[in-house]
């Protein structure tokens, strides 16, 4: 982990309140692994007190930049949204563990399940899977069409099928993305692994869908974080059978069986 002062190089808007921030951080771009995250801080008077956690969405190793996909939900993300190119952010990174992909071989098939801004960690993962010749299907869900606006960026990286679902039916099939996956699994699917990132209710039902199917899975979990590197003990998730795991250190990428989803808010 390093505390990196990085300049914002550009910003791309995908939908109202959903944008990508590109920052110059060559060492991070070269070294970060898919699934890892950064704690981002903004200097200045009217900043939030703590940093906020964001997955590294993608890197451009040639340009030495990293991309973060940000959904505006409160004061910290609004602060990032006000940044213009040339301004500086502080990136504590890389943090946490990474998705596993090194055990996959050419022709293996995997499923990626993304709920809304939970699509964030997947461009980098898709690049790695693509370079190994792994075929990845993307199941992308949201409440409404604008939640899927990032698909313009991610589609070219998807090597398999793309299936969308929205609660209101404004894009893809009406309903939940987890039901979409369940139907595909019913027909075999043949997946070596399922990767997922989204809100807690999505993880809860996905854990149920995958239960007993014998498919390995990795969830990119989220918990409110104070520090991001294992010292404040805020980001705990309940373990089956009692006790807690420290998600910024032992995760954020966790097997569904590592967490007692019924005890998660």
């Amino acid at each position, binding site marked *: 982990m*390093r505390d990196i002062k990085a300049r914002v190089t550009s910003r791309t808007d995908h939908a109202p309140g959903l944008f990508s921030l590109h920052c110059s951080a060559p060492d991070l771009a070269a070294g970060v692994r898919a699934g890892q995250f950064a704690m981002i801080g903004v200097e200045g008077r009217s900043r939030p*007190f*703590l*940093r906020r956690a964001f997955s590294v969405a993608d890197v451009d190793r040639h340009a030495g930049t990293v991309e973060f996909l940000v959904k505006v939900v409160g004061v910290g993300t609004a602060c990032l949204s006000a940044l213009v190119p040339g301004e500086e952010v502080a990136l*504590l990174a890389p943090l946490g563990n990474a998705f596993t992909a090194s055990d996959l071989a050419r022709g293996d098939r995997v499923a990626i399940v993304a709920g809304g801004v939970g699509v964030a960690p997947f461009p980098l993962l898709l690049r790695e899977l693509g370079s190994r010749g792994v075929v990845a299907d993307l199941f992308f869900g949201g409440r409404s069409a604008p939640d899927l606006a990032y698909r313009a960026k991610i589609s070219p990286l998807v090597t398999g099928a793309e299936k969308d679902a929205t609660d209101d039916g404004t894009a893809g099939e009406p309903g939940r993305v987890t039901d979409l996956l369940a139907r595909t699994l019913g027909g075999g699917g043949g997946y070596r692994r399922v990767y997922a990132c989204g809100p807690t209710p999505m993880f809860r039902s996905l854990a149920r869908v995958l239960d007993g199917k014998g498919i390995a899975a990795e969830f990119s979990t989220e918990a*409110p974080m104070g520090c991001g590197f294992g*010292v*404040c003990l*805020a980001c705990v998730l309940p373990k089956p059978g009692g006790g*807690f795991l420290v998600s910024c250190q032992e995760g954020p990428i966790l097997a569904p069986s590592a967490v007692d989803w019924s005890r998660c808010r």
Partner: protein
Amino acid sequence: MTSSYLSVALGPVRLANPIATASGTFGYGLEFADVLDLSSIGALFTKGLSLQPHEGNAPPRICETPSGMLNAIGLQNVGIETFLREKLPLLAAAGATVFANIWGDEEEEYVEIARALSGAPGLAGIELNISCPNVRKGGMLFGNSPEATASLVGKVRKATDAPLVVKLSPNAPDLVESARAARGAGADVLSLVNTFVGMAVDPETGAPRISFGTGGLSGPAIRPLAVRMVHQVHRALPDAPLWGIGGIETLSDVLEFMAVGASAVQVGTANFRDPGVSARLVRELDAWCAERSIAARDLIGRTP
């Protein structure tokens, strides 16, 4: 840093510089090895340790508040056995000056921990947390009455020769009386302050934002309260060495606490936002003192 400008003494405690890091905000120290040299800071205080490993409270455990945060971690920790076996030797090898922050549900537990830690190689002292607002038993119970404080500190004092720091509760009805009680019972140094009991509620649902209900408020929001308390205790007990704590982020905050009577300071919540802050404060204080040819110890208690 060993610049002679910066060394301070707090009773039996000798520090190379007055910048330490506060319990619960610095993990077991080793987490920071990537961003700072652990031997460069005056001292570090471990997460609050108990006899047995402790699970802590259910999440959510923190929430941000204006210029600070509320927490109710509930003293999750690895227990003293693991600390002594796995953490302390590495800290000693890294040249860190280590104080173990300890807590228990009962007096006997504090005594047993203090005994177990006594003479541990690489341990500079023990800090008694009698002021945690985030556990149902223990913690703050001892800090809330001068009688309970005196009884506990007296028993721990008998059990160990290690330098004994007692961390006072800003939630105590009479801080000066608690300070007097702790000193009278043998505390070498007093730390003040721990977090203030606070609360935040979701306006939509009316539910508390952290699962414990209330939490401890820390960060710059509490700094003026903490400065006032250090000043107050220093006026009442001028001979008691004090460790000032509360919302310290910058060099001017350090100077402020020293001016009102703190011989050293502990940086807390700021470590979350800026893990390198403590080492940077040492460098900044060094430069500040060198520029004025003034020793850090001469900065203590200048405020009337």
